[in-house]
């Protein structure tokens, strides 16, 4: 029960952070990616803040709390192909998974289309490539 509340809180911090930072606004995201147009660097500040807290916290706490080790794997062709496809979709809609799901509560039409489509893409790739973990 206690873990459930903490997990809910963790998600709530994450969602609140997405909204506070403006990352739930698709135009704000595509504006970061639009480096040859009206570039908006806000997303870099978001990544900076997130990496500072997560990376710093992980570095200091991993020993005492026995946190999982470096999850890195070999750089595979699937990693590259997947990242390319993700980047293309990200640039098309201005949605990555977190902000799309965060917008479900506000019943935004774009999120209501995007999230089921994303689920479909995931189910298909998990079947084809037998992705388990």
């Amino acid at each position, binding site marked *: 029960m206690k873990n459930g509340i903490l997990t809910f809180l963790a998600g709530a911090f994450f969602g*609140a952070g997405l*909204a506070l930072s*403006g990352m739930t606004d698709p135009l704000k995201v595509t504006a970061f990616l639009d480096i040859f147009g009206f570039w908006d660097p806000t997303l870099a500040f978001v990544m900076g803040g997130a990496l500072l807290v997560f990376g710093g916290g992980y570095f200091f706490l991993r020993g005492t709390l026995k946190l999982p080790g470096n999850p890195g794997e070999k750089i595979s062709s699937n990693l590259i192909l997947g990242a390319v496809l993700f980047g293309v979709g990200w640039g098309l809609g201005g949605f990555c*998974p977190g902000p799309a799901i965060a917008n479900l*509560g506000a019943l935004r039409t774009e999120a209501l289309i995007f999230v089921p489509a994303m689920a479909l893409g995931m189910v298909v790739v998990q079947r084809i490539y037998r992705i388990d973990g």
Partner: protein
Amino acid sequence: MNPDYLHGFLGGCLIGGGSLLALIVTGKIPGISGVFGRLLKPKQNETSWRLVFLLGLIAGAGLLFQLSEQASIFRVPDGRNWLVYAIAGIVVGFGTRLGGGCTSGHGVCGMGMGARDSMVATVVFMAAGMFTVTIFRLLTS
């Protein structure tokens, strides 16, 4: 400094803090695409924390939308209709699960834990996103 940058930084700190808390509580790396994708697989024994985490995410964002007019700003970029969002969703779902992560799983958690493959993935998806936005603007304007 542009207040958007400050909000971005503070929001980023919340994202990092939420991710860290989820990692500590569950012992799993809480990348959103992984959390969501594994929920879609039947016969999973540990679906509950993933569902709770995502419900918290929706609630936290919803709360901010209610509290702040600025946080609730939602603008669809030029030329994106429902079909573009349907295609984008499929491609993002396929790509994030094939590549093992998204902006949070690779960009925040993986990079924050020092994973080299996450750094490569982040550079690649950012470059692909920049390329796509540029081409989309050139084709539609």
